[in-house]
């Protein structure tokens, strides 16, 4: 908030400070949970998790949270040191230098890009299922049309800056959670009641052993990491909360418990319907296939079943918004810090949103989605598998890098207290190492075209390998191209360690690139 004074000649006017709006406990929790979009995440991934680990899916759901929780500590404390930029792009730049920082920003953009086909696919799939036009889901061009309309519609919404009020969002999320709880309750009641066909849940579904090999576990984790993606948003919003001392911590703990519980319980419920096989056989519409059996054909059952589908759709829309907004804002940040062409930093005067970045992202993801749909049709592959696995790789890369950046950034503070050691040293390091392992092991597995189902080979490697690693590496020539146009950002040095504020907070850091720096 700034105040500018322009009084009549000689007339001095004092300025009043107006504080920015603050978020309460409930809205902070809502933002954290809504950004993760539980119904959509489950719809898009559950079938692939069971493909890799079978009935061990619930164990993977809670295991995947551990590295994500560790990285959340890194997000929280890096945000404290550098809240004015607050992007993993600027954090990594400060900790590891401009080239790593540029790649960090690029990888988060690419993660956003890769997830778009998955979102559009699920949106199209469940739109047709909602109206009972099940046969249209096999028509590539119908799916493509609805998916493209969805992407471009959501891009327009982000461009115009339409925001659902906190209350509407609260209502949508409450409905989404309520219907997932209802689904789980009914399914589990039938399973424990011994209804024919249902599978009685077992403790062994939750124990972290017997996954059938490192590759199965790491692939399943790669996908499950994707379901917790977005949860870190809550960590960065925290600083703006009403009572900065208690609200953020409490909101973080609450949204964590809600998410882990929802994912684990819904997974148990879904696989108790007909075992893991039904999920693996219907990876494109798990909640539709299981929901139909759980809720049955009665009047009320049909209503709940439709509500479940609507919940997936609203959740996909919310998730799409929380993908486009950060992508456009990352591009804007990078442009403002002269790491991207200046056009990406343009803000629309009417809607006050990053217009150019938003539209470029919308158009590029539309092209990407359409291309994947057509390639999948003619190579008999599956867009959803590719997107889910490749986005997992990209998230593992950029979250892992953030974990290492945190450790490097605070290296002088780690041994100053037990709290520091745990939160800015141990947890980020463990998270970073775990994700690095999943990333590398995933690359190794995806280099084999028969690793996935259906097996598809692009020049001898699985498509996931190309989408995941190719988009990341494509950034390198672009980076050097931009370096040749404007060198200012690439002259930034990793901050001298004495100037960095400790994890407890301190004076904000100066901007990355000084104003008016030469090209």
């Amino acid at each position, binding site marked *: 908030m700034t105040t500018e004074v322009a009084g009549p000649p000689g007339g001095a006017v004092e300025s009043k400070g107006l504080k920015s709006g603050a978020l309460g406990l409930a809205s902070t929790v809502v933002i954290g949970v809504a950004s993760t979009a539980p119904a959509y995440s489950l719809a898009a991934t559950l079938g692939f998790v069971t493909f890799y680990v079978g009935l061990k899916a619930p164990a993977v759901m809670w295991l995947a949270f551990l590295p994500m929780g560790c990285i959340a500590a890194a997000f929280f404390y890096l945000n404290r040191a550098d809240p004015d930029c*607050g*992007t993993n792009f600027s954090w990594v730049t400060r900790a590891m230098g401009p080239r790593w920082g540029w790649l960090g920003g690029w990888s988060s953009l690419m993660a956003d890009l890769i997830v778009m086909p998955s979102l559009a696919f699920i949106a199209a799939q469940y739109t047709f299922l909602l109206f009972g036009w099940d046969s249209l889901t096999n028509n590539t061009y119908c799916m493509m049309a609805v998916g493209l309309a969805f992407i471009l519609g959501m891009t327009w919404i982000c461009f115009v800056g339409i*925001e659902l009020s906190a209350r509407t969002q609260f209502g949508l999320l409450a409905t989404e959670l309520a219907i997932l709880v209802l689904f789980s309750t009914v399914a589990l009641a039938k399973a424990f009641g011994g209804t024919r066909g249902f599978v009685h849940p077992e403790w062994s579904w939750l124990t972290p052993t017997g996954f059938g090999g490192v590759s199965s576990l790491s692939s399943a984790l790669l996908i499950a990491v994707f379901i917790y993606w977005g949860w870190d948003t809550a960590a960065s919003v925290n600083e703006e909360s009403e009572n900065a001392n208690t609200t953020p911590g409490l909101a973080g703990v609450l949204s964590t418990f809600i998410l882990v519980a929802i994912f684990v319980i819904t997974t148990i419920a879904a696989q108790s319907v007909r075992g893991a096989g039904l999920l693996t056989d219907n990876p494109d519409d798990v909640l539709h296939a299981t929901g139909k059996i759980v809720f049955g054909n009665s009047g009320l059952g049909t209503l709940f079943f439709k509500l479940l589908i609507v919940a997936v759709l609203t959740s996909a829309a919310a998730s799409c918004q929380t993908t486009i*907004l*950060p992508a456009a804002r990352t591009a*804007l940040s990078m442009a403002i810090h002269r790491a991207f062409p200046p056009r990406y930093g343009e803000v629309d005067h009417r809607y006050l949103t990053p217009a150019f970045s938003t539209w470029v992202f919308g158009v590029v993801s539309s092209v990407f989605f359409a291309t994947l749909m057509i390639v999948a049709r003619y190579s008999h592959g599956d867009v959803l598998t590719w997107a889910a696995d490749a986005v997992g790789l990209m998230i593992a890369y950029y979250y892992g890098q953030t974990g290492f950046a945190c450790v490097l950034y605070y290296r002088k503070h780690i041994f100053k207290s037990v709290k520091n050691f745990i939160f800015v040293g141990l947890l980020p390091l463990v998270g970073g190492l775990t994700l690095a392992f999943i990333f590398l092991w995933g690359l190794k597995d995806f280099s084999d075209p028969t690793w996935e189902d259906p097996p598809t080979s692009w020049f001898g490697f699985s498509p996931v390998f190309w989408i995941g690693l190719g988009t990341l590496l494509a950034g390198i020539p672009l980076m050097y191209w931009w370096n040749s146009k404007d060198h200012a950002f690439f002259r930034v040095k990793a901050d001298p360690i004495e100037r960095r504020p400790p994890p407890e907070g301190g004076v904000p850091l100066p901007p990355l690139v000084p104003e008016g720096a030469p090209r």
Partner: protein
Amino acid sequence: MSGEVILGYDGEPGSRAALTTAVAIAGAFKRPLVITFGYAPAPIGGEVADLSKAVQDIGERIAKEAVGQARALDASVETRVELVNDRPADALLRAADEFDALAIVVGSTGRGPIAGTVLGSVTYQVVHRSKRPVVVVPSP
């Protein structure tokens, strides 16, 4: 000081008409004029800070231009600018409370009637939530 005239200004044609009226009221009642520009990016989607700053720069430019116009209309009116990091309607209402304002002046439509219905009209919100007089100036 209190009893200021608060003007909601975003640089759109609707708010330009409101500016003229607000200067006239401030001049007639011998009150200072506060030109308010409010905007808060959605907290969902992380990475708010750089966007906020870019929007603030736009706000400063728009507001500076408004101050120039207000001066040209009536140089005796004391004019100040408040850039508030909040949604536009909340920004106006809060500024009005802080200043114990005489009145809030807004344009009738910023975005046109249809867009206003879909996106939510700042004017509509202010009219219904304000505890103070609100002057709504129709677009020319």
